[in-house]
Each structure stands twice: as structure tokens, then as C-alpha cells.
């Protein structure tokens, strides 16, 4: 087990180097005109000398690989440069907004589990009955709904039509968390219900379930004692994989509901061409994603005796 964790941590190094390199290269490809854009957006015409001087100041005149290494060394110290727009420290700005996004993501995951787990299980147990068809119908609808449309619909119904929730709240309060969470949950729960259903259904078709039924074990006991215990690992893994689309989804949802997290920060940074900020956002989202997947993989190994003892993955 310890060897496995160690091996996985070693494999992490090239991936992290790749992520940082790719993010850096991408921003540098467009880096030059960021400066002219910066001055243009202030509405002043500037001489080439000033642009060149700014380039030297930002280290944009050095060879590419040197720039990358300098940036990487800075990143390890928590220094990811200074925002082109606000002139504030990028890393600090990002970390100050991160808790809000994590809160939103966390509450979306919790509610997805609360909704999708029971629905998926019911749907599988009542396979091809009316309940199953109903649940499948709604999960299909949720799956085909773009999250910005869901967001605007929810906003229209709850804030404008029935005035239950405020359209825009000042700051991140619990009330303002409701609609963004609901938006993310619509598509996530829809997708996840389908996955839970498929996993449980597959498990229900295995021989040991037939055996247990033949011996007269009650259906509910089979589902909760055996089937769920076995399926739980796959179900959790699928949830971890969906973190990726969730992180992308927060960018849109935060933007619509003015939720003050990293997603909104990133979209604002993109429209202002604030490259260091975009860079920091991309790198950190990727790192979070990779780490979540790593932890899930390790947990998988830790919890599943088949994988743990067999040595190989399933």
C-alpha cells in the first residue's frame, strides 16, 4: 500500500510539470499583446519604448524556458505574479476567493448525493416500473439542460416571478448560496442518478443476489447490506470524476449569480486579459482536480480488498 501511494505521488510530478508548462506556454503565446491591450484599455496612446520597458519589467524579454523556470520557482513560493489589472498579488487574490468556490462546490456535491443516491437506487430496484421511467425522464431532462439556462430559469421563477429569493445579494450569504447550488445540482444530480442506477442495476444482476434471494433474504437487506456496500466505491469514484465538470460549471454559475468566487474572478480576468490571473486560475483548478483524483484512487485501493490484495487495478 505504501509503495502504491509512493508510486502515485511520483507519477504526479510529470503531470504537475506538464500542467504548469502548458498553462504557462498558453499564456505566453498571447502575452505580448496583453501589454498593448493594457495601455489601450486605459485610453492612452503609448510609445514603443514604454511597451518595451514594461516588457522588461515583467520579464517578457527573456528566453521562454527561463521565463517558465522563473515563474515555476515563484509559484512554489506562492508568488504567481501581479495582476495586470488590479496590480494586486495574484496568488493572494485567488486564495481569498477560493473558499467561496469550495463552499459552492461542496454544497453542490452534498445535495447531489442527497438527491441522486436515493433516486438512482429506487430507479434500479424498481427497474422498468413507472417510478423508474419517471426518474429516468427527469434525469434525462436535467442532462439536456445547459446550466446557464437552468440558472436563468431558476432566477426568473424564484427571484422575479415569486420573489422568494433576492436577485442579487450583497456578499456571499447562505441565502445567495441556494440558487447557484440548485443550478449545479440540476445537471449533476441528473447525470449522477443515471450512473448510480447503472452501477446498482449491474450489481443486482449478479449471481450472489440471486443466491441471497433464493435463500429468502429480504430485498431491502440485499440492497442495503450487500449491493450498496459493493457499489459504493464505484459510485464515489464517479463522483470524484465529476468534480472536473463541476469546477468548469462554477465559472458560469458564479458569473450569473454574482457569487464572489474564483470562477467569477476568472471570467472577469479573461475579459480584461489579465493573463497572470487566468494562468493562476487554470493551474490551480487543474491541481485541485488532479489531487482529488489521486486521493480517490488511493482511497479506492485502501478500501477495496480485491484491488488491495490483487495488486492490480480491476
Amino acid at each position, binding site marked *: 500500500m505504501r509503495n502504491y501511494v509512493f508510486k502515485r505521488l511520483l507519477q504526479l510530478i*510529470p*503531470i504537475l510539470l*506538464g*500542467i504548469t508548462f*502548458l*498553462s504557462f506556454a*498558453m*499564456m505566453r*503565446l*498571447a502575452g505580448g499583446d496583453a501589454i498593448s491591450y493594457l495601455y489601450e484599455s486605459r485610453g492612452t496612446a503609448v510609445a514603443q519604448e514604454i511597451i518595451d520597458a514594461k516588457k522588461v519589467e515583467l520579464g517578457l524579454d527573456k528566453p521562454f524556458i527561463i521565463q517558465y523556470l522563473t515563474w515555476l520557482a515563484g509559484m512554489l513560493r506562492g508568488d504567481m505574479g501581479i495582476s495586470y489589472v488590479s496590480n494586486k498579488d495574484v496568488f493572494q487574490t485567488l486564495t481569498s476567493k477560493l473558499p467561496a468556490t469550495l463552499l459552492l462546490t461542496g454544497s453542490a456535491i452534498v445535495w447531489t448525493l442527497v438527491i441522486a443516491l436515493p433516486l438512482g437506487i429506487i430507479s434500479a*430496484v424498481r*427497474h*422498468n416500473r413507472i417510478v423508474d421511467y419517471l426518474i429516468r425522464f427527469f434525469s*434525462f*431532462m436535467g*442532462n*439536456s*439542460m*445547459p*446550466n*446557464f*439556462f437552468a440558472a*436563468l*430559469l431558476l*432566477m*426568473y421563477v424564484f427571484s*422575479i416571478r415569486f420573489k422568494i429569493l433576492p436577485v442579487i445579494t450583497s456578499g456571499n450569504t447562505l441565502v445567495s448560496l441556494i440558487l447557484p447550488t440548485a443550478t449545479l445540482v440540476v445537471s449533476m444530480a441528473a447525470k449522477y442518478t443515471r450512473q448510480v442506477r*447503472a452501477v446498482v*442495476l*449491474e450489481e*443486482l*444482476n449478479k449471481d450472489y*443476489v*440471486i443466491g441471497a*434471494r433464493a435463500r429468502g433474504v429480504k*430485498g431491502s437487506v440485499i440492497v442495503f447490506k450487500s449491493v450498496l456496500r459493493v457499489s459504493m466505491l464505484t459510485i464515489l469514484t464517479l463522483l470524484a470524476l465529476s*468534480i*472536473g*465538470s463541476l*469546477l*468548469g*460549471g462554477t*465559472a*458560469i454559475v458564479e*458569473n*450569473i449569480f454574482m457569487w464572489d468566487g474564483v470562477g467569477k474572478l*476568472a*471570467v472577469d480576468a*479573461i*475579459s480584461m*486579459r489579465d*493573463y497572470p490571473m*487566468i494562468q493562476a*486560475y*487554470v493551474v490551480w*483548478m*487543474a491541481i485541485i*482536480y*488532479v489531487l482529488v483524483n489521486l486521493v480517490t484512487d488511493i482511497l479506492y485501493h485502501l478500501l477495496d480488498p480485491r484491488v488491495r490484495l490483487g495488486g492490480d487495478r480491476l
Partner: protein
Amino acid sequence: MTDHVTQRRQKVVRSHTGARLIFFLILAGCLLLAALFAEHLCPYDPYAQDLSIAMQVPGPDHLLGTDRYGRDMLSRVLIGGRTSIFATLILVAVVTVTGTGIGVISAWKPGPVDTVLMRISDLFLAFPSLVFALAVAGVLGGGVQNAILALALVSWPKYARLARSQTLVQKSSTYIMAARLSGSSDLQLVIRHILPNIAGPVLVTAVLDIGTMMMELAALSFLGLGVKPPMAEWGSMMSDGRSLLQSVPWMILAPGAAIFMTVMIFNLLGDTIRDYLDPKERTKG
């Protein structure tokens, strides 16, 4: 709880799937035709502004109302559909072709080529896809082509991996060995035997992805990183109506419902094609 599907029942299910497949194919075909001939279907010029009839409630003259510049919403949804649907189809085609190409090459040439290609695809898979696409589209500066490029960049690894694993399976089968022994060249083997045999799963994945890609493309446009106004496109039309949600909700509802229904039709089509081609999935329900 377990249903043992008998031969007879299987036939019945199959014929249902066939009928469903034809039904959804026709629906999708209608969508494509509507997109193709959008300008002939438009009751008004989708770009003609007339402030005297701005923000009109849906009614007999303007079935879906008018937007803030007095442009007919129905015409805009129709013409916007062309941009949305064709941009998505181009995106899916580009991703499928490049991804499959890379995957087949990777499986065909084990060793350094395979390793390098697969490590690159690992790298792209390490990013949350929409986050990366947002950044790429942002850096490239928006526009339809750039949005397509950004999404293509994050979506190809999935196809490369699928094509690679499928090719590896085919490659070791006896019929390939027989074809090789009877003198087929590598290129002939790939084009005549490998590609037709891996086409099924790749095609299913591609059709199932149309809906997702359409939503992602519209999301980029919604954030101002895809199609730029005044060009009509569903995502950018919704972004246009966002600030007027309170007074002119149909500016959101019309294009939103259009995306929703189109995505649903393509998702249903994808599911049906999968059921049709893969009986194992079908018995699972």
C-alpha cells in the same frame, strides 16, 4: 429482478429500437434541414432593427416576440440555430477525426510514438475541460473558430484513448493476421479493416457528445468567448437577454428552449444508436 431475455423478447425489443432510431433520425434530420434553410423559414429579417416594435410580447405578428432592438425572435432563433448546430457538428467532426487518427496511430506504432502521444493526452485530461477551454478561448480572443479550437483541444484525448483501445483489440485478431499474410500493406489494413471495425463505438461516442458539445459551445458564447454579437447564436442571444430577464423573459426562454430541445433530440438519438448497436447495453435498460 433479473430478466432473462429470451430470443423472442430480444427480437421485439430490437424492432422497437429500430423504430425509435428511425424516429429520432427523422427528428434530427428536420433540425438539420431547418438549420440549413433557416433564411427561407425566417418570417422577418433576423438582423433588421426596428426600435418602434422593440420588446414586443409574443403574439400573432411575432410568434416569439421581439428583442430589445425590435428584431423578430423567431427569425433569430432559426438563424441562430444554424450557427449553433453547424458549429457543433464541425466541432464534433474535427474532434472525432483527429482523436481517432491519433488513437489509431498510437495503437499501430507501439514504442516511443505511442508513449509520447498518450502522455500528451494524459496531460490534457488532467485539466478540468471547461476550465481549460475557457482559458484557451479567452487567450485566443473569442470568435466561433477559436471557441471550436478551444473545445477541440480539450475533447480529443477521449477519442484518442477510445480509438487506441479499440484498435489494439482489432490488431491482435486473426483476421488482421490473415489480411497481413495475404499481402495487405499497413495503410490498407488500417483503412479497409481497422477503421470500419472501430467505427461503431467511435460513432456512438460522437453522437452522444453532440449534446454536451453544443451546451459547452453555447456556454462559451454566453460568456462572450464564442460567437460575437450581432451574429445570432443561441448562447450569445441568451447572454444578450440576461440583463432584461425581468422585463423581456422571452429573450432568454426562446433560445434556451431551442438549445434544450436540440440537445435532448441529439441525446435521445445517441442513446438509441447505442442501444441499436450494442445489445448488451440494451438489456440493462
